[in-house]
């Protein structure tokens, strides 16, 4: 009984952290911070990192890491813009971009499983390769693209759209989050992801098809980076090959703050989303207070370390 309560407390820890950070800023930031508008803004700004970190949640639960997501996002924005300029309809362009993300992820997965190399080094390599491809495809320029409904996905709501509550992109984040949560809980694949991350040897003994599962994990990570790229394009309205450099660190941080363990076998969708929100709230609060960028960076760095220390402490408690 006591233990169950403890477990719940542990699961709610990221939520508590989020609420705490929010309350702190509610007191020290200008009154606009607690407005509904700002809540919407925070949610919108979380979308890109949030979607990418859903894929990363799978990767990290499975005991791996994917450093190439930032580059994939950039490549996807470029692909979408390129397709639009080539005269494709927005839906084709969007699908094409997302598909490019999927392909990138599958390449990662194939390299990791076939070459049997640590994901860190493979995705470090593809980080450079995909970024280079993005720049090459875009001729080292940003690609302007005609406006279309894609750009509405993550724009602030117009008054006549208020029935949507939040923009379509945020709905997409929510749906994808629910989807991944369900996949983790209600599919064989989800079970395998956890077991591989927790103990790859034992999973092999139990006949888990490790290679296929890993391929799928990195494929999904790429697919979600593709969706994140779509959102990024929606915000930028241009295909920018230099965008999202360093995004991978934000994404990994979101997963880890949300309780994911780099040793694998642990993590949750809810935690990840909360982790991503925590970082946006900090950034938003600091910006609206007019605090300097460097303070934000230091605060974010400290929060990452503190979050992981807390995580370690609660593990110790349990064992």
């Amino acid at each position, binding site marked *: 009984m006591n233990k169950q309560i403890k477990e719940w407390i542990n699961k709610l820890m990221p939520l508590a952290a989020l609420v705490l950070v929010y309350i702190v800023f509610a007191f020290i930031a200008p009154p606009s911070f607690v407005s509904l508008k700002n809540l919407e803004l925070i949610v919108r700004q979380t979308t890109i990192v949030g979607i990418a970190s859903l894929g990363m949640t799978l990767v990290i639960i499975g005991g791996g890491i994917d450093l190439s997501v930032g580059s994939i996002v950039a490549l996807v924005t470029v692909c979408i813009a390129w397709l639009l300029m080539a005269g494709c309809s927005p839906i084709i362009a969007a699908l094409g971009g997302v598909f490019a993300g999927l392909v990138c992820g599958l390449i990662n997965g194939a390299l990791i499983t076939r070459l049997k190399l640590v994901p860190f080094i493979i995705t470090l390599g593809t980080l450079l390769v995909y970024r280079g491809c993005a720049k090459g495809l875009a001729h080292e320029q940003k690609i302007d693209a005609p406006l279309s409904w894609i750009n509405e996905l993550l724009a602030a709501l117009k008054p006549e759209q208020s029935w949507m509550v939040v923009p379509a992109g945020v709905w997409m984040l929510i749906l994808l989050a629910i989807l991944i949560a369900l996949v983790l809980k209600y599919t*064989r694949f989800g*079970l395998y992801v956890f*077991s591989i991350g927790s103990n790859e040897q*034992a999973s092999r003994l139990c006949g888990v*098809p490790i290679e296929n599962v890993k391929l799928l994990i990195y494929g999904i990570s790429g697919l979600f980076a593709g969706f994140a790229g779509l959102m990024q394009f929606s915000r930028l309205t241009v295909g920018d090959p230099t965008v999202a450099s360093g995004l991978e660190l934000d994404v990994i941080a979101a997963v880890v703050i949300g309780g994911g363990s780099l040793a694998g076998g642990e993590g949750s969708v809810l935690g990840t989303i909360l982790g991503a929100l925590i970082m946006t709230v900090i950034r938003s609060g600091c910006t609206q207070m007019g605090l300097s960028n460097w303070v934000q960076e230091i605060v974010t760095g400290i929060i990452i370390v503190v979050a992981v220390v807390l995580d370690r402490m609660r593990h110790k408690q349990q064992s």
Partner: protein
Amino acid sequence: MSSEFRLKLDNIKVRFGGTTALDGVDFAVSPGEIVALIGENGAGKSTLMKVLSGAVIPNEGHMSLEEKPFAPRNPQEARHSGIAMIYQELSLPATLTVQENIFLGMEISKGWILDRGKMHNVAQTALKELGHDISLETLVRNLSISDQQLVEIARASAVGCKVLILDEPTSSITRQDVQKLFSLMRNLKAQGHSIIYISHFLEEVEEIADRFVVLRDGKTVGGGKIGDTTRDKIVALMVGRQLTDLYPRSKHAFGEPLLQLEALTGETKLQSASFELRRGEVMGIFGLVGSGRTDLIRSIFGLDSIKSGKIKIGTYSGYATPSQRWAQGAGMVSEDRKGEGLAISRSIAENLILSYPQSCETSGAFSPKRMLATANEWVSKLSVKCRSTDQKIGELSGGNQQKIALARLLHHGVDLLLLDEPTRGIDVGSKKQIYEQIDNLACNGKAVLIVSSYLPELLGTCDRIAVMNRGRLSPPRNVSELTEHSVMMKAIASDLENITSNA
């Protein structure tokens, strides 16, 4: 009286979480003496030596070294006090050279600078004494397992020490090397070193030791001068347990053969194994640590690669991956529970159904509810003590963890069960339940292959027993023709003819 001992241990107690590894051990060793420490697996020998070497801190007890209190807080302190130890399970840092491994932690140096020349000479001498000329610049990962063992021995002797501890140093070296080791030990003894020698090879103990001490269940149960006793008495002291109703046994009806091996040879330890296992039969494989039993089981199950030989499971011939083996109706329980057996950070239920999640799927969707319900069934059937089935399996006691590992095969409904040390580290009560399950399975026409280091349980549960000795499996014999003594003799025999002959 006490002055004649160099090292003295009083009432040492060590607990790991729930298990008591040492329960008040007294032990002493004099200068110029070789003491053999013997006992069954899990008796606490290694733990006791780890206490000496600073790797384990005792919960209770007192130690003194040359009349001074001795309480090493880490391996470093112990080594500097003159305790050298060859660990049973120490794997050497494999990317270092032989010479570096020999001196790691006790380097010869002038200030910060290593004196490689001097170390080279000392290491060379130490290896010469062992009669080996392994190149000192070879990386350890390029050495064979037995050469690695020699490096460990050389490490202990090269550095110099007051007390030398050897925890099963001969488990993987040849007879000739053992003789060289013994002459080295005699030299050291003559120079006044104290040596503690742990081994399951009783003939070696008789040959080299002056005195023996027997541990059982973390307590000292006896000892004495080697010359004053017989090997049978020592075995009796080691095993010394009444085995009455611990082993339920029904009459098994044998069916068609399910597992057939023909001269199976693995990549590492397994030299040759041939037998036939029939439905309704429980077969045991006995052998000493490192004799290659685990290799055999892993090779059958597709976890280790096979060099040659034939293998047939049911109607399927040839080699296969673990997932194919499951599909062919075979299942395996690993000896290495934490490393390979269970996903420690996942729940009981997940571990239980991991090999067969299809059983918890309704129209393609995996149902956690059904998984928990399934797990609940097995938990109550096997009376596993747990809070709930979505508890992390790492929180369970070893015995209960082992039951889940076994329940995985039962749930999967496999016909062929490969059990590697299925009762390692678990209490007597749990053991009995597991034996009952095994007996039940045989009655229901399944085939069971058990590997165990615990001889009584093999004698109690199996229909036939084969003995593995240094990679070779003897032909299985009916348990009625065997005694503990005869099996043990076969396992520790040093001449191969004796093993493979059926007499």
